[in-house]
């Protein structure tokens, strides 16, 4: 009984669509981002440690390094004409990456990648109209991935390695639409999971048809982030609810879905063209289940019902001279969120991205990678229909419109 109470269809917890669909942030290399974040069949520096470790054995230099950061600004506007609700949120994210590859022998290359493929934050006004779903969320997951790649021949190589993830989330929402303390402050809960760790793996291969055409595939496994010692902290609890909304431990699981990438690239004179297809296996995220271990609230099940989604990426690079390369790209990204599950912590729908950038290589060999990207979203009328209140699912929705703009800078060096 008590468990159903307050319709603690607690959350949404960790899900947030930062950039691509779901909570995937596709910004793992400024060279490749400028080419629409293609790269599974591209040999273009240390970024391959992420895109396809198999490609690292074809790098020319013994040592290759690449690191960078993006500053992304994600804007979302929301309105509901029935009630005259208007709201907006602007959030800044700074995904980073750092890669190194070392060609130990002619046929063996090892590498190390650090990157943050999932994450970002959304921060609505406290007690806004959708506060029972989310007030704010801040999610981060860092991947540490050592790789080994083996060149079988000049035509074929494969590689891969384990992935260690360290992630965390802070999430706040109101416990219901009307619960408030004696002063009228709405009761809310902050759920925090810190330093959650998990393991996964990545593997890929690269096939060179000839000097021009490459085909590659890379797979990153799903990783289930299991929190067994998270915390729940309630605020502005009315006196009668002290026994119910008890601070304490929570356990929860959140999947970081598997991703399969296949791609092809073609080099011709000063041109490089790339096409990637990503399939992200979001279906694993069917519900967010949070167990309030120390509270009579019990277990909260929050349907998510994500679907697998695809991304189609195109990119091109033109090498002007030894110093300067120019890049451009485009991609189309499907949202994994299905109609009726559109929650304001994942307030985005399908998007089209336009990217561009360049690398300028200084005399000392240091390359500076600059990138700009813009994601265009259409208006979407959608809602989250599974917030349970007194046994009844109620809907929260309206028209959402998002835009994401980012600029990034990185350095690359090889010798």
């Amino acid at each position, binding site marked *: *009984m*008590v468990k*159903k*109470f*307050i*319709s603690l269809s607690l959350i949404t917890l960790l899900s947030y669509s930062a950039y691509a669909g779901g909570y995937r942030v596709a910004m793992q290399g400024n060279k490749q981002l400028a080419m629409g974040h293609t790269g599974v069949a591209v040999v273009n520096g240390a970024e391959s440690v992420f895109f396809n470790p198999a490609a690292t054995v074809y790098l020319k230099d013994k040592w290759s390094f690449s690191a960078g950061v993006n*500053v992304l*600004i994600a*804007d*979302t*506007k929301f*309105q509901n*004409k*029935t*009630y*005259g*609700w*208007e709201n*907006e949120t*602007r959030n800044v994210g700074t995904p980073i990456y750092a890669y190194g590859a070392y060609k130990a022998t002619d046929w063996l290359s090892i590498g190390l990648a650090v990157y943050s493929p999932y994450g970002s934050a959304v921060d609505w006004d406290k007690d806004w*109209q959708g506060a029972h779903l989310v007030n704010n969320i801040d999610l981060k997951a860092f991947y540490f991935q050592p790789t080994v790649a083996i060149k079988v021949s000049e035509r074929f190589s494969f590689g891969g390695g384990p992935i260690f993830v360290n992630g965390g989330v802070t999430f706040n929402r109101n416990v*219901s*639409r*009307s*619960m*408030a303390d004696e002063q*009228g402050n709405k009761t809310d809960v902050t759920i925090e999971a810190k330093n959650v760790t998990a393991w996964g793996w990545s593997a890929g291969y690269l096939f060179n048809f000839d000097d021009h055409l490459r085909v590659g595939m890379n797979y990153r496994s799903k990783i289930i982030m299991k929190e067994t010692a998270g915390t729940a902290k309630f605020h502005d609890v*009315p*006196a*009668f*609810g*002290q026994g119910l909304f008890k601070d304490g431990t929570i356990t929860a699981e959140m999947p970081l879905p598997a991703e399969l990438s296949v791609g092809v690239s073609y080099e011709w004179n000063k041109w490089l063209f790339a096409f990637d297809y990503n399939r992200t296996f979001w279906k694993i995220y069917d519900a967010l289940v949070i167990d309030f271990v120390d509270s009579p609230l019990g277990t909260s099940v929050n349907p998510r019902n994500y679907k697998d989604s695809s991304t189609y990426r195109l990119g091109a690079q033109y090498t002007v001279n030894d110093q*300067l390369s120019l890049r451009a790209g485009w991609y189309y990204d499907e949202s994994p969120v299905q109609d009726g599950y559109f929650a304001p912590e994942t307030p985005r729908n399908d998007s089209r991205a336009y990217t561009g950038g360049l690398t*300028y290589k200084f005399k000392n060999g240091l390359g*500076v990678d*600059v*990138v*700009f990207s*813009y994601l265009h*979203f259409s*208006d979407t009328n959608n809602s989250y*229909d599974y917030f349970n*209140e*007194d*046994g*009844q*699912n*109620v*809907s*929260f929705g309206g*028209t*959402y*419109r*998002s*835009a994401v*703009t*980012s*600029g*990034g*800078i990185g350095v690359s060096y090889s010798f």
Partner: protein
Amino acid sequence: MKKRYLLVLPALALMVSCKPEISEKIDSNTYYPGKADFSSYVAIGNSLTAGYMDGTVYKSGQSNSFPAILAGQFKVVGGGEFTQPSFADDVNDVGGLLFNGVGNPSFKTKMIINMSTGGPENIKGESTIEVFKQQKTAYHNAGVPGAKTFHVVAPGYGSMAGLAVGKANPYFVRTATSENATVLGDALSLEPTFFTNWIGANDVLSYATSGGEGVDQNEVGGLDPSKYGGNDITHVGVFQKVYGDITNALTANGAKGVLATVPDVTAIPFFTTVPYNPLTPELIGVENIDKLNGLIGMFKVILSSQGQGDRFQLISKEAANPLLIQDKTLADMSPVLEYGITQAVASGQFPIELTPAQIKMIAMSFGQARHATAKDLMLLTSKSQIGASLPVSTGSPVMDALLKKGVSFPIGDEFVLNTVEQQKVKTATVAFNTIIKQVAASKDLAVADMNDLLNKAVAGLRVEDGQIYTADYFKGMGNLNTVMFSLDGVHLNQRGYAFIAAEILRVINKHYEASIPLVNPAVYPGPVLLPTN
């Protein structure tokens, strides 16, 4: 190319980032007043308009009266200032009333749920709301708790002097601009361009909430309301005249408005919460049932001589049993019972020895008693009666132990609305609502059919966001987030008044071709729950 230029590029990129715009964005054309003008909105009515809930008016509750919620939405389409009677002196937010510093049992503090006992109670604490501190101000919210239709036009209804002789209303005394002011006159002084009028409920419901302890003036042809008792049903002719006068006055200067109908008792938790048959065998005590049935059986035998044996039924050990109630519409069988019981005691058939005085007392008590049926409406106030011991001893400890209200001793008629009383209520409600709709039609005013709305809410009414609101009393955690009636069972709570406001907005949008954003009841507070009181 210089290095520093390169570093500037990402910054430039971010500067050009532009905020998205929704293509059909809410703008100055989205909402409009249509054919109505909300620059001066006045609300006429009774407690339902005043923001009365949980048995009183208190500061935080009043802030979400339905007219206040409406006025907030009207602001989007040119609504003007909206004032309500000041409850700034309700410093503890407990409601109630003081009369020259003295409390009054008819004006208690607000009801809350005491979690340690589980039940609704008046919150501990003293009222600080002083009736004698007159504000002498006309307010846009002209709702006066307790007002009947004819009170709205009654001079002196806010007179301090009239209070002592029961001719004035303490809530109106607090705000009336003069001794002879009328509710309507004060409201008209604000030159309303738009009004809501939800008056008429007390003209019938005060009879119903008293369990029918009043006179139906339609039966006695009572045309002079100054002679009415507080629990009487207003004569339909009086209602029609006064209601028409009020509407004429409000519309005299072209004001538009909404007239609201009177809800039926069957849609109000005060009448629908306590079942007629709450007595499970366990509740009665299975071990007592045979003994009680011995008693009941004897009464049945005695009354069957008059063809009245079916007033009672034997208590079942398996199924839920009906309450024993008093019904003043029944023929008084006390002489028959007195004779019969005396005979039974004398012949030794009666299980207990009784004195003639005790026999008389029992006979009187059961003379108009019967078991309740599904058609009887038990008032919310009957709840505390059920199973209670008698207030005065019968003189026999054995009898005292046996006689429990509702089980073996009838609950008073004032706690039951029986079918005869219900019919009077229904007839009057239908008549009043017919008048309200006719007047609205004649003046081309919008009708908010609250009767229809709440009748639909009995089964559950689904609103825009999918939530279903019902006309239920607070049930605990099961409807904590959706209950819309306050703990007094008659009036709505803040959430319920938002539900009412949303309906009135729908009506206005339709009738006056306006576009005003709705309110969502879900975010408004429900009952006050306290760990202890």
